[in-house]
C-alpha cells in the first residue's frame, strides 16, 4: 500500500498504462519500425509520471513552473509519445505518424519539432548531463522545479553518463531525480554479458547519490520512491527501477530479441506469422497477463 496514492488512483493509473501498451503496439505496427521491449516495460512509469508525478501543462508546454522530464534513452520515445498523447499534448491519431516523413514524432525525439519534448535524444549517455545542467541552473536562480531524467541501464556503458553522475554528486543536485530502466537487456544481449554494470547501487552511492530500488511495475512503490527523493537533502537521487522488457505480453517478456524490433519484424518462434504479429500481440495484451478481462474493465 502506498503512502501517497489512493487505491482508486492506483487502479486508474493501471488502466491508463494498459491502454498505453495497446496504443504503443498500434503505433509501432503503423510505423513498421521501432523498439518494442523497452517501451512496453516503461509504460507503467511513463503513466505514473504524466498522470501523477509531473507538474506540467499539456496546453502550455513551456510553463515556467513545470517539472522537466529528460528522456536520455531516446529510442523508447514511442511510449513517451503515447503518454503525451493520452495526457493531451497532441491528438491520439497523430501516433500513427510515428517515423513517417513530415511527422513531429521523429524516430528519436527532437526538441525543435514537438512541444513538450525538452531535448533531442538518441545518442546514448548524454541525457543526465543535460538534466543536471537544468537542475544546476535552477538552483542558481533559486527555483523549486524538479528535474527528472529517464535512462536505460545499457547506456551506463557510456563515459559521458559517468561524467554526469560525478558532476551531479559534486554539486549536490537534490532537485534532480534519475530513473534507470533496469531491464537487463541491450541490443546485443544481456547487460551483464555485454559490459557488467553491477553493482549499480554501490557505484551511484560512491558518487554521492541517494539510491532507491523499486519494482518499476508497482506504481505505488514507484510513487513512494519519487516522494522520498524529494525529501533527500543535498544529494541527487536515482531510482533503479527493475522492469520487465516486453511487460504486458508474457510471450515476449525478457526476450532481448524484441529490443529493436517492432511487431511485424520480430522473432517468429512465438508469434509465428509476421503479418499478424501486431494483432496477435494485442489479443494477448488486452488481458494484461490475465490480470483483467479487457481494456474496458
Amino acid at each position: 500500500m502506498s503512502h501517497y496514492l489512493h487505491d482508486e488512483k492506483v487502479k486508474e493509473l493501471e488502466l491508463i498504462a494498459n491502454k498505453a501498451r495497446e496504443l504503443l503496439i498500434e503505433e509501432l505496427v503503423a510505423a513498421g519500425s521501432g523498439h518494442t521491449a523497452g517501451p512496453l516495460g516503461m509504460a507503467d512509469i511513463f503513466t505514473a509520471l504524466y498522470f501523477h508525478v509531473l507538474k506540467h501543462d499539456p496546453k502550455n508546454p513551456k510553463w515556467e513552473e513545470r517539472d522537466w522530464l529528460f528522456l536520455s534513452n531516446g529510442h523508447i520515445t514511442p511510449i513517451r509519445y503515447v503518454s503525451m498523447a493520452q495526457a493531451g499534448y497532441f491528438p491520439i491519431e497523430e501516433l500513427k505518424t510515428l517515423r513517417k516523413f513530415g511527422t513531429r514524432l521523429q524516430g528519436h525525439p527532437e526538441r525543435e519539432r514537438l512541444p513538450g519534448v525538452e531535448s533531442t535524444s538518441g545518442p546514448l549517455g548524454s541525457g543526465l548531463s543535460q538534466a543536471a545542467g537544468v537542475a544546476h541552473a535552477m538552483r542558481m536562480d533559486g527555483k523549486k522545479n524538479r528535474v527528472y531524467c529517464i535512462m536505460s541501464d545499457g547506456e551506463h556503458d557510456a563515459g559521458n553518463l559517468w561524467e554526469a553522475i560525478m558532476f551531479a554528486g559534486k554539486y549536490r543536485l537534490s532537485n534532480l531525480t534519475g530513473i534507470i530502466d533496469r531491464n537487463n537487456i541491450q541490443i546485443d544481449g544481456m547487460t551483464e554479458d555485454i559490459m557488467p554494470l553491477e553493482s549499480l547501487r554501490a557505484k551511484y552511492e560512491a558518487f554521492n547519490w541517494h539510491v532507491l530500488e523499486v519494482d518499476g511495475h508497482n506504481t505505488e512503490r514507484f510513487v513512494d520512491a519519487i516522494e522520498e527523493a524529494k525529501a533527500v537533502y543535498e544529494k541527487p537521487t536515482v531510482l533503479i527501477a527493475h522492469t520487465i522488457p516486453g511487460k504486458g505480453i508474457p510471450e515476449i517478456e525478457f526476450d532481448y530479441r524484441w529490443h529493436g524490433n517492432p511487431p511485424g519484424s520480430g522473432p517468429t518462434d512465438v508469434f509465428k506469422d509476421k503479418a499478424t504479429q501486431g494483432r496477435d500481440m494485442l489479443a494477448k495484451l488486452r488481458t494484461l497477463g490475465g490480470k483483467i478481462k479487457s481494456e474496458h474493465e
Partner: protein
Amino acid sequence: MSMLNKGAKLIDNLLDVKNIQMVPTRDGFGKGLVEAGEKDQRVVALCADLSESTRFHWFAQKFPERFIQMGVAEQNLATVASGMANYGKIPFIGSYAAFSPGRNNEQIRTTISLNNIPVKVIGCHAGVSVGPDGATHQQIEDIALMRVQPNMTVVVPCDAVEAQKATVAIAFNNKPSYLRLGREKSWVFTTPDTPFEVGKAEILRVSSASSGQADVVIIGCGILLYNALAAAEELAKEQIDCMVINSHTVKPLDEKTIIEVAKKCGAVVSVEEHQVNGGLGSAIAECLAKNHPVPQEFIGVQDRFGESGDPFELIEVLGMGVGSIKEAVKKVFKRKNK
C-alpha cells in the same frame, strides 16, 4: 601610398614588425567574456580544468558564482551547458579545441546544434601555433567539424581586439556558436574602431588600380591575415596588386562580398591555420563554384598532422608563411592569365 582600407581603421605602421604589439587572441576572448558577463547575468562559464590557459579564470575571479568547474570531462562540458542554455542561461564552454569540439563533437551536434540552443563553444589553442605541445594538441580540423553542423555560427578572429568583439557579439546572437582562438602571442593590427559584424567580411586592403580590380584577392581568417597583409605589401613592389579580405565568420559565410571580390579580381588565395580540407578555403570554393568559379590556391595545412616546434617555425615549414602566400598568389595569377 598605403593601400590599406581606411574604413577598416587598422593600426598605423602596421608592418613595423619590431614594434607591433603581440597579444594572444585568447586574451581578447578573456576580456570579452568578462564584458559579456557584466552586460548580462545570464552569462555563465563552464571550463574543463583549463581555466587559466583559456582565460576563463578572469571571468571566474569576477563572477565566481557563475563559473562552473567541470573537471577533465569535455562530453559533460558540452551537455551540461546544453541543459543550462535550454533553461535560459548563456553558457560559454572552454577547453582546448583538440578536446572541445574535438572529443565531444557528437554531443555538440546532437544536444547543441540539433537542439538549436545558444551554447558558445570556445576552442582555445587551435592551430599549429600551439607549438611544442605537438600534433595531439594542435587542432587543425575544428573549422571543418563545426561549419558542417546546421545552425552553428563559426567565427575565427584575426587578433585579440577582434576576439574581444567577437566574444561579446556571439554572447548575444541567441545561436549555437563556435569561437576559435590561438595560444601564441600574435600581431594586433585591428583597433577598437575597426568595424566588426558577425557574418560580414571586412576589406583590409584595397586594389591600387583605379578600376578597383586587383590581380588577386587573398581571403583569410585568423592570425595569418597578418602574413597575408605582409605578403600583399611585398607583392606590390613586384607589381602584383592584391586585395585582402578578413572573412572572420566562416559560417554564415559573407557570400555577397566573396562573390563580389572574386568577380573583381578573378583569382583567389585562401589563407587559414587549418587543414585545407574543409576549412575556410573549402567554404569559399563551394561558394564560388556555384556562383562565379575562379582559380583558387589554398594556404593551410596540406592534409597532414602537425608536430612539435616553435609556433612561427611551424607556420613557415607547414607552408603558411609570407613566402608561401606570395608563391600561391603568383601561381594563381598565372593560372588566371592562362
